[in-house]
Each structure stands twice: as C-alpha cells, then as structure tokens.
C-alpha cells in the first residue's frame, strides 16, 4: 500500500514552478465542472490533458460541432477477435452537459488551448475486463467505484454522519459548488482522493489495469511538458491524481498504447446513462445534476429555488402520469420546508439530492416503508433520472451499420421520424416489396430487438398455414434502437451481415450448451435465417444443421425438424423472386433428404416403445403426418414408408398401433377400408387390462380422427366392443374412451353419433344430446353407485324394481 500524505498532495496540485496544474475530478460532478471552468479561465492553459482514451481524441472535434446536444457518448466497438476472446463489451464514455471533461474541452477550445486525451486506448487489454461473466456488459474507461465503497469511505461516513459514499460526496463537495475558491475546492477533493487512494489495495490496482493506465497518463504528461508552450492543466479522475503528480524518472507508455479502435460519437440518453452508473460511472441521476448545473451556470434563473422547482415539477409529473401517487399541496409545502431544515441540520448551504429524498420520505409517505422500497421513492428516482435524449447534427458520422439500417428502413418506406410505434401489414408472399420489408424487419429483430415486433404471421406455434399470408408488425425508431445497432456494429456493415453473424454465434452457443446434436434447434435457427433472408449465412448454417441431423438420436426433435424444413420449403416455393430465398431452396432438399433417411432409421426403434413413453412416440408420428401431408414432399418418402410397413407387422403398444395404422392410411400406404379392418382387429385384441384395446383408438384419434369418422367399419368395431363388455367393463373403459373421443370436433362427434344411432336402427331424432356433460369423475362415480344399487337390489330379491315401468 502506498502511503500518500493528503496535506502534501493538496499543496502540490498547482505547481507554479513547473506550470503544471492538476485537477482531480469526479465524473458528472457539476461542482467539479464549475470550479474547473473557473480555474481554466484563470490559468489560461496552453494544453489541457484529459483522462480519456487516446483513441477517442479524433472525436473531440465532432463533440464540439454545432448541433451536438449532450447526452452523447463516445463508444468503441470490439472487433471480431475481441469478441472471440470474450472481451466483447462495447466501451462507453458518456458525456452530459455537466461533465467536467466536457466543460474542460469547451473551455480549452474557447481559450485556444490544445486538448489531449491521455488514457490508454479504449481497447487496450488493461482497459478491458478479464471477467468472463461480464463480457457483454458495457466497459467504462471512467470507472470510479472507489468513491462508493471501501474502508475509508465507510469511516468518513460514520464520522461525518452520512449514510453512504454518495451522500458524503454531495455533502463535502457538491454543496461547495457556489464557493468561488477553486483552489480550495480542488485541494479538498485532492486530499479526499489521496486518502481514498492510500486506503486502496495496490495489487487490485495492478490487476484491474489502473497502474498501467497511470503509466500511460504520466508518459503523456511528460510528452506535453516536453512540447510545452505554456501552462498545462491535467484533468483526471481524482483517484488517479495522486499517482500522477510525482513525475517518475522513466515512464515509457505501456505496450499496445498505439492500438487504434473503431470509435464513434453517438446520441445517448439519461436513462442509459443512469444505468451505466450501476457500473460505477460517476454521479447518478443525471436529470437532477443537470438541473443543479443549470442553476450554477445561470442558464436557469427562475425565481423559485431548485428544491421548489424539483418538488413542484415532480408533483405535476405525478398528477399527469401517476395520479395515484400524487400528494396534496400542503404536503408539498411541508416537503420544501423539511428539505431546507434538513440541509440546515446537516450544515449544507442548500438542500441536495439526499435532502430531497428525505423530505419526500418523511412528508409524503404516510405508512410503513418496507425495506426502503416505496413506489413514490421509485417514481422520484425515475423523475430525477431524467429523460433527456441527446442529439447529433444531421449528417454526423455514425457506424456504417446504423447508417445502412436507417437507409434500408427508409427505402422500404418505414417511417423513422419519431419514436411513436407504428403498425405495418405485409402481404409477404404476393408483393415482393412487402416480402423484402418482412425480411428486413426479421433481420432487425435479431440485430436491434427494440425496433420491431411481429404481432402476427406464420410460425411454428400457429402453424405455417397456407391462409397465413399476412404479417403484422409494430416498429419505432428510438435511441434504444440506435444503441442496439451500435453494440452490434462490429458484427457487420449491413443489417443482414450482422444478423448472419448473430445467427452463427447462436449456433456456436448451441454447441457450447451441448446442443450440437439438436436438430430441431438447428432447424429453428435455419428458419430464423430464412425469415430474415440471410442467404450469406446459409452455407454455414446448413453445414451445421447437417451435422446436427446426423448426430441427433431424438426422434421427436428430428420429426419436428422435418416439419420446419417442409414448411420452409413450401414457403420458399411461394417466394421464388427473392435471391436469398432461392439460395435456401437449393440448399434445403439435400438436407431434408438426410433428415428423412435418419428419421426412417429411427422409426424401427418404435417397436421398443412401451406404455410409459408412448406419448412422445405418438407426437413423432403426428409430426411426420404433418410433414408428409405435403402433396409434393421435398424429401424421399420411400424409406419412411418402408419403416411404417415394417411397424405394421410387429407387435406394438396398442396406442402406437392405432397411430401407425392412421399414418399409413393418411399417406396412402393402405386403403382406408384396410385401415378399418386392421383397427377392428386391434380393438378386439385381448389384453390383460381391458382398457388397452381402446387405447388403439387414442392413437388413431391423435393423428387422423377423420379415419374413425369416415370408416364405418371402425365405428362398428367399437360398437361391437361396447356390446361385448358388461357395465363394469364399460366403467373401466370409460377413461380411455373419453381420452380418445376428446380429439373429435363437435361436428365429428355428431356424425359418429348419427352413425351409431343408425347402426342400432334409431333415427337422428332419437338421439338425446346430453348438453351439460357432468364432470367425468362424478359421472363414473354415479354410474358405479348405480351399479352397486342394482346388485344390492338383485341380492335383496328386488329384481322387479329394475324392470322398466310399464
């Protein structure tokens, strides 16, 4: 642990002899920003060195361009290599109007000073997180978690009576924003930061790259001194300042300092900014601190105080948006009073963030608060977070992906003017342009999910029905869309390329999760690629899907895959005008050929299926029936037919027997009459459990209820079955029968009823329809009870009672 003397640091911040001035700051601190502006005006530096990644330097000019409205962010995108190494996060350097760095850049430019960034390049290994769990989190060159925790902060809080590091910072420094003594202010910040620094663990600083970065900063300072033409101001996070003041004899920049990166200036918003603060990016609640900044700089010279402005504004916001939470006017008055008195009690010149929250809490909440969570407090946090959106002038340089996405959306006639969600209906098969739009939206759904949502359209869940010709979409262009695109910008220059990269990554993820042999998942990805019109990725995908097909041993997944593949093929036939779709339709048949042969191989194993896992097997056959219903199937049916033929000759679980017969009839392997005969035979089968024969029926119903309805011989067979069992036998069959008949539609039930009635010589009028079917359990209980009564009466010699009354 290096020990730095706070008092000494405070003195050496401003070294008149070396004409070198250090300004320790905290990110997004209005107090630091204001004092820094005054200080720069007084010192009139020739060069201002700022803690920012050196590769962001070219963005300084863009940042100052007219039309730039913070919040904006400088971002650096990972390259593909970085992604592969698990260092895939995007680097963010957010800037708002009250950021000291931004104010310093503006002031320096006004004074004609050169502005340099002196931190390591954003993609330097020392700037990246080594933590694999964090790899998709944003990376922040300006992390300053040390202000929030640690032994020193805790001890200071306890001594000075602040609840946490943030309140401590507010109380010690933000409250001094109006003090005109910038030297005194920075001396205090410097002393505080030195103590923070002294209490931190050197090994940790080595590990997280802090020391390497400081070496870079010192090297840059040395360079600036060598090239000096006047005073130099060094603006860095206060935590680094103590390590920069003492020039070390040799400070060569660390290796890799010249790394270039893919850096951009983008629009940002306060909500996103506040989310970053979860990772230690500076003061939170940008909406609050921006208001503070407006007051400090006189851009807001309202008559009311900041406290009044915020609380009155919050009340108006609640009345307009969340009336249930709104509080009465007298409460507002007592809140303002409470905030002032709290500030006084805590020795502050005016109420700050903490006092506002405390005032709200004590005056407006008239009930017990559970563990600090109350909707009103949450609403206040959101209110103070602010919702300002940054802006860039038209024609700003943006990552190509963003430009291309905007361009393509516009050329397809999508409206991007505002963030209001709009609905679009697409006739995907008949109108080529609608088809293109659909594919673009599907691709955007992969690349920038906030952009579009599909409300309706053909898919696996709703079936790829032929009548599903239209898709309905809701879409809106918002900063969140832009942010998503920027995060994906390294994946490709066009939406389609980026989508392809994402799909291929998902495929790799499948492999990582041990799902390499999951044919269904692979076909699902293929289906997504198809929807998004990604012809370029098709080769890679198809190869991977082929592997999955060959290695998958799960019949259910394979048959589902076949359904998806068949649907893709038939949809492709309807959209031959598109080149990407044509690419698919040439790749699909060989794949489906392999798939069908694989399924046929596995079908033989169904002979081993027993009552416990018959459900899944039935599902497979149903899926097969779905795929083979295609009059011109894109896969060879011969191997499948052979397998079925074999299955019909072996002893199967009764339910499976039914399903196999149904499937065979469906695909024309046997005549319907033949199917009826086979079923009748199966139904008459002798099993140790009486219900087993009826399970054959369930198998048929699951696949082809029409077979049962159309084929009178089957109905006759069942009717015969009923005739053969006594009432107790019927009760035992009842559950199985109910299960089997549940598959029928009401019309089909009617037809069966009519057929049965006719067989017994009754007309349609004689059918009594039981409108309200009682609960199955109750029904069988009552039947059983009736049966018990009957036998009791017989025993008691009351057989006469059972005769129908004349």
């Amino acid at each position: 642990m290096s020990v730095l003397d706070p008092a000494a640091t405070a003195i050496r911040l401003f070294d008149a002899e070396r004409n070198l001035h250090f300004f320790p700051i905290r990110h997004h601190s209005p107090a630091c920003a204001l004092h820094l502006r005054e200080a720069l005006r007084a010192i009139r530096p020739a060069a201002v060195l700022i803690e920012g990644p050196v590769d962001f330097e070219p963005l300084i000019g863009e940042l100052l361009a007219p039309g730039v409205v913070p919040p904006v962010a400088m971002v650096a995108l990972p390259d593909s290599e970085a992604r592969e190494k698990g260092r895939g996060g995007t680097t963010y350097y957010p800037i708002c109007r009250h950021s000291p760095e931004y104010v310093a850049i503006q002031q320096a430019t006004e004074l004609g000073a050169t502005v340099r960034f002196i931190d390591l390049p954003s993609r330097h290994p020392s700037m990246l997180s080594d933590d694999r769990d964090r790899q998709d989190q944003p990376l922040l060159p300006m992390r300053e978690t040390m202000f929030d925790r640690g032994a020193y902060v805790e001890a200071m809080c306890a001594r000075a009576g602040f609840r946490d590091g943030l309140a401590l910072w507010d109380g010690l420094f933000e409250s001094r924003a109006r003090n005109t003594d910038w030297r005194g202010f920075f001396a205090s910040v410097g002393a505080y930061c030195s103590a923070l620094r002294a209490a931190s663990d050197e090994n940790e600083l080595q590990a997280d790259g802090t020391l390497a970065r400081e070496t870079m900063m010192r090297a840059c300072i040395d360079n600036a001194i060598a090239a000096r033409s006047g005073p130099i101001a060094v603006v860095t996070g206060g935590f680094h300042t103590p390590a920069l003041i003492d020039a070390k004899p040799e400070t060569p920049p660390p290796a890799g300092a010249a790394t270039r990166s893919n850096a951009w200036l983008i629009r940002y918003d306060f909500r996103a900014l506040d989310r970053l603060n979860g990772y230690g990016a500076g003061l939170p609640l940008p909406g609050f601190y921006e208001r503070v900044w407006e007051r400090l700089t006189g851009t807001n010279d309202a008559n009311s105080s900041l406290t009044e402005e915020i609380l009155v504004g919050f009340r108006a916001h609640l009345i307009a948006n969340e009336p249930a939470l709104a509080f009465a006017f007298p409460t507002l008055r007592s809140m303002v009073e409470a905030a002032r008195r709290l500030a006084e009690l805590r020795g502050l010149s005016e109420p700050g963030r903490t006092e506002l929250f405390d005032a709200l809490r004590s005056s407006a909440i008239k009930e017990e608060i559970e563990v600090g969570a109350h909707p009103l407090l949450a609403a206040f946090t959101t209110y103070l977070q602010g919702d300002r959106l940054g802006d860039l002038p038209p024609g700003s340089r943006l990552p190509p992906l963003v430009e291309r996405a905007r361009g393509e959306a516009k050329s397809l006639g999508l409206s991007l003017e505002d963030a209001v969600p709009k609905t679009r209906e697409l006739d995907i098969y008949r109108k080529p342009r609608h088809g293109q739009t659909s594919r673009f939206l599907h691709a955007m759904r992969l690349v920038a999910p906030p952009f579009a949502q599909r409300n309706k359209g053909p898919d696996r869940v709703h079936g790829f029905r032929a009548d599903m010709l239209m898709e309905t979409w809701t879409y809106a262009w918002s900063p969140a869309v832009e942010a998503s695109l920027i995060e994906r910008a390294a994946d490709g220059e066009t939406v389609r390329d980026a989508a392809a990269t994402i799909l291929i990554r998902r495929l790799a993820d499948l492999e990582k999760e041990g799902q390499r042999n999951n044919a269904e998942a692979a076909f699902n990805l293929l289906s997504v690629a198809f929807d998004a019109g990604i012809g370029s990725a098709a080769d890679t995908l198809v190869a991977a899907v082929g592997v999955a097909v060959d290695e998958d041993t799960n019949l259910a997944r394979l048959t589902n895959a076949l359904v998806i593949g068949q649907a893709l093929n038939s949809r492709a036939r309807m959209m031959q005008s598109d080149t990407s779709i044509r690419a698919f339709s040439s790749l699909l048949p060989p794949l489906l050929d392999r798939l069908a042969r694989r399924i046929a191989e596995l079908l033989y194993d169904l002979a081993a299926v027993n009552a416990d896992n018959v459900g899944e097997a039935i599902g497979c056959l149903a899926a097969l029936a779905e795929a083979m219903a295609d009059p011109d199937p894109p896969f060879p049916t011969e191997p499948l037919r052979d397998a079925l033929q074999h299955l019909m000759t072996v002893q199967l679980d009764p339910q499976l027997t039914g399903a196999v017969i149904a499937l065979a009839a469906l695909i024309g392997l046997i005549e319907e009459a033949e199917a009826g005969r086979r079923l009748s035979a199966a139904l008459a089968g002798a099993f140790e459990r009486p219900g087993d024969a009826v399970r054959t029926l369930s198998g048929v119903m699951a696949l082809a209820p029409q077979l049962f309805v159309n084929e009178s011989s089957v109905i006759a067979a069942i009717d015969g079955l009923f005739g053969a069992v006594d009432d107790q036998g019927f009760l035992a069959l009842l559950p199985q029968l109910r299960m089997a008949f549940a598959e029928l539609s009401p019309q089909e039930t009617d037809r069966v009823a009519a057929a049965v009635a006719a067989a017994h010589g009754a007309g349609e009028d004689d059918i009594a329809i039981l409108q309200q079917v009682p609960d199955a359990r109750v029904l069988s209980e009552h039947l059983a009870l009736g049966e018990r009564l009957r036998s009791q009466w017989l025993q008691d010699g009351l057989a006469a009672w059972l005769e129908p009354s004349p």
Partner: protein
Amino acid sequence: MEQRNALQLRPSAEIRFADELAALKAADQGRRPPGWALSARAVRSFILGDSKLSVRRKFYGDDALVERALVALMSEQGLMLVGEPGTAKSMLSELLAAAISGSSMLVVQGSTGVTEDHVRYGWNYALLIAEGPTPRALVPSPVMEAMRLGRVVRIEELTRCPPEIQDVLISVLSEKVMAVPELGESASVYAAPGFSVIGTANLRDRGVHEMSSALKRRFNFETVTPLTDPALETELIRQEVDKRLGQADIAVNFPDEVTDLLVTTFQDLRRGQTKDQVPLSKPSAVMSTAEAVNIAHAAALEAAFLGNGDVGGGHIGRQLHGVIVKDNAEDVKKVRAYVDHIVKERARRSKVWSDFLGAVKAMKDES
C-alpha cells in the same frame, strides 16, 4: 425527587443521561428552535453520540431517520414512529422528548381504555362540586400540559386508542389550541412554542384501529426497522446486557462467540435466509433486538445463578425457546427445521453452536 428516583426500577431518560444532556447544553452553539432545550444538532448528537463530549450513541441504525424526525418536530407536523415491536420506537421517542423538552414524562399510554380525559382534560370532582368548573378543579391531560409548557408529548401505541380519541389530536395538531368551554366561552389553552406530538404505532398488529387520513396528514411517518448490520446489533446487545448486569452487580463471562451465535441466529430467522443466502422459513414471531437482549440477559442470569458464570450456547438455546413459542406452533416447526439443517452444520465446527444445538434439541423433545 432524587431520593425517589434512586428507587425507581428505570429512571427516565433525562435522569439517566443528565450528565450528557448537561455537557451538550454547555457546548451547544447552534440556534435553538423556539421552545427547545437544545439545538437540533445537539439533540442529534445526544441520540447518535458525540465522541468529543463523550456522549454515547443510544439509537443504532438509520441516522438519517433521526435527522428527518428532528425536522418533523421542528415543523408543525407531529412525528409518527411506526414499525415492528421491539425496534426501539418508544426508546427513540423518549430520547427525543428528553433532549428537546428536557422531560420525557408527558406520555399517554395508548390502549382501548384511553378516554378523552387522558388526551384533553378531566375534573377533580370534589372540587368541581364544591366550586363549580374552575381552573383549580381542572385536571389537565399530558397533552394539555405539553401545550401549556411547550413540550413534547408522547403517545405510545396510538393505534390502540379508540378512533374518537385519535380524532382529538387532529385539531390539537392543526389548530394548536384546546378549548375548555366549561370555563367560559373564550377559555382555551394555546400551545406554547416547542409543543409537539410523537406517536408510536405498530401498523401491522391485528386488532388496532386504523388511523384516519386526516390524522395521518398531520404526522410525518418514519419507519423504524430492525437492525440489519450484525456488527451494530452485536454492539448494542453487549452494551445493553452489560448495563443490566452492571446494575445488578452480576459478573459473568460472556464470550464474543456466544453473542455472535445469538446475533447470527436472530439475523438468519429475521431475514429468512442465512449470510450465505441459504433460504429458510421465517418464523412469524418478533425477532427484535430487544428480544435478543432479553435472551442474552436471561442466559447470563442463568449462567450466574445456576451455572459457573460462563455463558455458553446452551444457555442461549434454552432461552430461544421462550421467544419462539410465544406466538404460535408453526414457528416451532420452522425453528426446528432451521436447527436441524443449518445449526447442525455449524455445530460440527464449533463447541458453542453444538451446545446450542443440544439445548434446543432437548427442548424439542420435551414439547
């Protein structure tokens, strides 16, 4: 007065901490709100401690809560302290009254039996019959006394008072005046500066009277929560137990490990999960710090009078039972599960925990 206090089981706060209050008063530089005995900052120091003046910290937990409470009392609002039983609400209200008004004796003990006499005024009937309604015959309530003297009046368990009694407070808090029509049309008691009301309530208890929103509006609410910081709780328990034992001249050996066990058990059961995020079912019994102090105290007494003066896990285990079965039988099962799964594991590595386990198990078999 002094004489009588020496015999009191528990002297009031202003007497117990007379030295500290005097020291604070002597050093107090701040502006005093009208009618207050000390500045708000001095009151804060009295409650949260000030090492320079050797003022001991008396309230552990949320410092900002104390500050908000002070601000409420400086304003025209009353202060309502809510929270589970045993979270030191009453103690906090006593300390506030003692420091602000120099007296914590003006108190109404809320209950269903509270009548208007307790919050407005009553009469000395002998005098009333002899002289008619005269100021001499009037018996003021603590509330009226507080108004007259400009002091803080405490109303404990406000929600246990019948609604009509609660309603009396509405006009007292908003008009700051109490009319005495029996003494003439214009006879009223006006509140002197410094008058305020501190109520305490347990909003979750069954069978309490709902507060009207009119009354709620006149109070600032503060939720007092159980201590979540084990270190703070440990410190508080040690202090309290040492004080109680010291008063009775009892010396025991109370190892840190035993206090740790007590605090850990309480924190686990209170939060429904252990430090290592192992979930457990939370008993409904109140597991407050005050209860923990009681257990520690009782364990120490057992060790002193029935044992060799060494407090161990067994003593805590035997006392824990009393806290748990106070409320319901479900709790006993929950604690049993806690003991069977979590304590057993700890008992393997520690003598204190295994004594604790043994004692709780022995209890179980009896019940």
